[in-house]
């Protein structure tokens, strides 16, 4: 006869309510892990999207995401001519805020040269940019659709294509425009400001500035060798794709990662304490029954089993509920939440250990219960 199951069945509503509370707590733990994974995924999205091997940036810089980087636009020609480089493209990155019908919208604008690396790779609607001016491809998270108009700076752009899952490390939706449009957006002065510049004798500065040159390398040529060549002969900083991803995941989001890690640890500690308190309270509630069991001759293993099995059942049901909750809710979060199977399994193992640990408090209490308590009336 399984006493734990009988007790749970008898107090099913209360037990399930407790599991529900625990499940919500575990859902928060899992969501923190998911937010952390989402943060990494989002921050790497920008670096992975162009599917390139090299990032050529300003000397002594680790740009364009971790640090600022400015290069003359014609650097692309120089990089494209390096032996082993099959394709090269100039790109710009900038954050802008604009107004749409839905309100203010913060965007991460990527300027690229159509036909070269750096543009949107997988469209879910519409077409790529084919005109040199005033066309934009937007991420689905902007809420814009093909045919909508979008004002960037002083110009109005027409949405021609829609991508999905393209966001910056800050979670802002990405939009793609041509390099020329992006340079105008970044460097072109408003007419009054331009007139003032001319009046004070300043000439019109070149706006052919880019933030990085990205390059694809022949699969038969070592990427490191090409990178060394560019560093040595072109006097530019070069990051391989792997280095760029490391910079992004280790430097750009390091503090956020540590913050979330600490918060998740605290949540796990809180969960442990709460589970321990629940089990302890459940055991206190059963002091009389435990005393009776001892008095009528039940061995310790029966009593320990009652507490331990309930603790594990609570953990298992709470965990299942938490996972189901977060899996069904993850797409409703404002930023990406990535729930990965290894994280879920790891949390499951932690919950199992936590339940074992937490139940020791209840088990200790149960083993100390004096059977004479049953006779105490």
């Amino acid at each position, binding site marked *: *006869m399984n*006493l734990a199951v*009988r*007790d749970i*069945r*008898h*107090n099913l509503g209360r037990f399930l309510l407790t599991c529900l509370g625990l499940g919500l707590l575990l859902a928060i733990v899992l969501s923190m892990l998911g937010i952390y994974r989402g943060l990494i995924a989002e921050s790497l999205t920008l670096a992975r999207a162009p599917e390139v091997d090299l990032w050529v940036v300003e000397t002594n810089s680790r740009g364009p995401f971790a640090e600022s980087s400015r290069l003359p636009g014609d650097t692309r020609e120089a990089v494209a001519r390096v032996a082993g480089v099959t394709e090269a493209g100039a790109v710009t990155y900038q954050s802008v805020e604009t107004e749409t019908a839905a309100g203010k919208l913060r965007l991460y604008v990527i300027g690229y040269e159509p036909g070269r690396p750096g543009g949107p790779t997988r469209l879910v609607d519409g077409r790529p940019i084919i005109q040199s001016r005033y066309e934009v491809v937007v991420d689905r998270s902007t809420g814009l659709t093909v045919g909508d108009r979008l004002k960037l700076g002083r110009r109005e752009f027409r949405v021609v294509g829609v991508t999905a899952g393209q966001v910056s490390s800050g979670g802002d939706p990405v939009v793609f425009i041509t390099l020329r449009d992006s340079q105008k957006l970044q460097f072109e002065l408003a007419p009054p400001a331009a007139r003032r510049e001319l009046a004070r004798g300043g000439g019109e500065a070149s706006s052919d500035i880019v933030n990085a040159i990205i390059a694809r390398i022949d699969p038969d040529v070592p990427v490191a060798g090409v990178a060394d060549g560019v560093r040595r002969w072109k006097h530019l900083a070069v990051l391989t794709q792997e280095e760029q991803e490391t910079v992004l995941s280790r430097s750009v989001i390091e503090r956020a990662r540590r913050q979330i890690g600490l918060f998740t640890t605290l949540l796990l500690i809180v969960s442990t304490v709460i589970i321990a308190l629940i089990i302890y309270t459940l055991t206190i509630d059963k002091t*009389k*029954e435990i005393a*009776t*069991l*001892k*008095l*009528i*001759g*039940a*061995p310790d293993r*029966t009593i320990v089993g009652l507490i331990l099995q309930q603790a594990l059942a609570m953990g298992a049901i709470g965990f299942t509920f938490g996972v189901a909750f977060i899996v069904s809710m993850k797409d409703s979060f404002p930023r990406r939440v990535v729930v990965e199977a290894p994280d879920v399994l790891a949390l499951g193992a932690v919950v199992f250990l936590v339940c074992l640990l937490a139940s020791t408090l209840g088990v200790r209490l149960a083993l100390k219960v*004096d*059977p*004479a308590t*049953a*006779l105490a*009336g």
Partner: protein
Amino acid sequence: MTQAAPLIRFADVKKHYGEGTARVDALRGVSFEIGAGEVVGLRGPSGSGKTTVLNIVGCILAPSEGELTLAGAAVYAGGRWLRPDLRRLRLETIGFIFQFHNLLPFLTSTDNVALVLQLAGASAGTARRRAGELLDYLDVGHRRDAFPSQLSGGEAQRVAIARALANRPRIILADEPTAALDSQRAQVVMDLLRQVALEQEAAIVVVTHDDKIVDRFDRVLELRDGLLV
């Protein structure tokens, strides 16, 4: 009344709590024997040592001095327990009946009785069958699927008696078994205990303050200040 070899032998048992000025002598040398088939009352004012006697016979409290013999086997002597597994001893030899029945609230009547049988090693089927028979015997068979909260006081006490009888114990210890019952039901419980004492050749000790059942005992042991009077 059947008089056979004593099932409970309490020989010059002393029990004190605390030391020095805080020392309280709960029992100051109590001796008695109870044989098979006997239903013995244990009476006395509060603090006279009744519960201490019951706890010692129930092997949940060690005497300070003296000897305890249960069902012919020495259990406590020379300042130590002589049986390694006292819970097993309780399970097989002693049945307990409580003032407030102490049934497990999450088990049905049948399961409360069957649990004791299963703890003693019976299979689930055997345990449930025997539990059913006992509940029928105690006239609560119709409440076999009810939980304790659904039983009346009298029904719950009968289920508790069925649980105490489940492993056919030779010794039954009852702590105020009629205190929560009206006069009529109290008499029924006493009839049942007497019937069990005779049929199972058991020794039954009933701690009671209840005057309305005092004439139902074969003997009454009166305790006062830790001594039998």
